């Protein structure tokens, strides 16, 4: 690949991101959702935790012993912020490709000389902005309303964890998009995958309380490490395996998943070209 082609692909990548961002801006009611859910969803679980604790010191001690932190609000807000980020990623590229398919513009898109990676990852660029916005809101709420102290160093460490998680999660999004393109169904698959993550990855609980078999499943899923390491970085809670080891596993999972996504996407594309199914839905 020449430098010229790489530079053209990068421009196309930027243009794809800009297009998605423009589409988002056209529907201002979505902004309300991005403000509402990062606060209200975790807050519901904080209230639930308050009900489960019932001001009982023994119950609060049990929570602290299992999670390694006494910051219940921080623990839950970080877990659900990760959940919402993952939801965005799962809905994003799959829905973007499916929408292009329904609009009838997917075939035209595949006829352009642009790299397939641009088609696959382009829509995700705009979502980085939403992810930052959401983590910003969650951080703001924790500091202002729940008195959680986050030092600049801790914030940088959390940003580092998010950065390390990017290949794994966005690779997952791309893999998901390829599967959606092959089977033409988004909703049930997003719900299913999100359900698996919600049950196994510890959004609202520490994974140590899972039964052995479920704990082993949790250790194979990237969101487990993202959530665990965010909590370790900001709240000092117990890490999954060890902080450095966690990040190394997350990065390795990211490389494997991204590679799998590229292979699966190429195969899906070949299948679609042979079967002429790109425009079908």
């Amino acid at each position, binding site marked *: 690949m020449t430098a010229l082609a790489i530079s053209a692909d990068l421009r196309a990548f930027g243009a794809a991101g800009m297009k998605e961002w423009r589409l988002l801006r056209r529907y201002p*009611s979505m902004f309300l*959702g991005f403000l509402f859910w990062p606060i209200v969803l975790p807050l519901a679980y904080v209230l639930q935790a308050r*009900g489960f604790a019932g*001001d*009982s010191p023994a119950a609060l001690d049990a929570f602290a012993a299992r*999670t390694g932190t006494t910051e219940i609000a921080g623990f839950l807000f970080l877990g659900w912020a990760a959940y919402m980020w993952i939801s965005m990623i799962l809905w994003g590229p799959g829905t973007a490709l499916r929408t292009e398919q329904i609009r009838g513009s997917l075939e035209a898109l595949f006829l352009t000389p642009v790299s397939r990676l641009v088609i696959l990852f382009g829509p995700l660029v705009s979502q980085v902005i939403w992810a930052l916005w959401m983590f910003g809101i969650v951080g703001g709420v924790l500091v202002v309303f729940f008195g959680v102290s986050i030092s600049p160093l801790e914030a940088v460490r959390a940003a580092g964890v998010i950065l390390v998680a990017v290949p794994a999660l966005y690779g997952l999004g791309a893999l998901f998009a390829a599967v959606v393109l092959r089977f033409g169904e988004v909703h049930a698959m997003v719900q299913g995958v999100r*359900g*698996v993550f919600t*049950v196994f990855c510890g959004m609202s609980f520490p994974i140590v*309380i899972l039964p052995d078999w479920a704990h082993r499943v949790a250790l194979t899923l990237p969101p487990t490490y993202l959530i665990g390491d965010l909590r370790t970085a900001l709240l000092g809670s117990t890490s999954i395996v060890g902080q450095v080891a966690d990040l190394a596993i997350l990065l390795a999972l990211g490389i494997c998943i991204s590679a799998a996504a590229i292979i699966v996407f190429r195969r899906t594309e070949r299948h679609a070209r042979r079967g002429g199914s790109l425009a079908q839905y």
Partner: protein
Amino acid sequence: MPSGTRVDSGAELRAAWAIARKELRVALRYPMNAVNEVLQPLYQFLLPSLLLGATFLVGGRAIGLEASAGTNDLVGFLFLGMLVGGLVSTAFWEIAFSFKREMDAGTLEPAWLTPTSPRTFVLGRAISGLAISASASLILLVLGILVFGASISPGVVLAIPALALVGFSVLGIGYLVAAAVLLIREPNFFVDATSFLFSMASGVMFPVLVLPLFVRWVAYLLPSTYALDLLRVHAIGSRPLVPLWIEWVALVVFAGVTLWGGLRAFGWTEHRMRVRGALGQH
């Protein structure tokens, strides 16, 4: 039916039944969606909540929940909450939001041109929505008892009239929200957010007493709060929010008020949309 025309109640009821059957037939045509009615609440709400509850257990007992709600049956508490959560969701998504789906499909205007009253469409969808919700809730409750070990007392039958009463309120709320859906036109966020807040304020996920005081007063204005409280008191022996006779009176009053208010709001919106010719716009 346009005002001034005599309503044939028998024909309207037959139409409501036909609409309900149509909606049920459509629902059964998508078996994955039907399965999701049970699975989604399980993995999106019940399991994360149960696991959060397990984080607070001391010696296997939910002593914190016992202090805040008067019961240590964590599983029963959450599964019964889901039952009422399903009813609330029916009012918002199955009854009210179905108008948005009709708008998008372009079939709302032709449907309202038939001699059937638009109010009957709401009633028909309420029947099918409540039937689906009741079936899903029953399966979830059986799962709660058999798989997760909820211990539901046979006294739960005493709370069944509360569910019937809240069914009328659900219909009234369905009318109210349907009116809002028709006016807003892009109601996804509105329905999603209000449905969630309504469920939360009713105590679906946690005891109402943990809510901040001003939100707790809102909770006391919701019929679902009392239905759920009666259900939990009779099924798992939780501590009642207020004396039980007040809860029964509140349920009867709310059933009448929400149904009357909902019908009025829906009738006013229907008239306004007919006058402005806005039915086909979305």
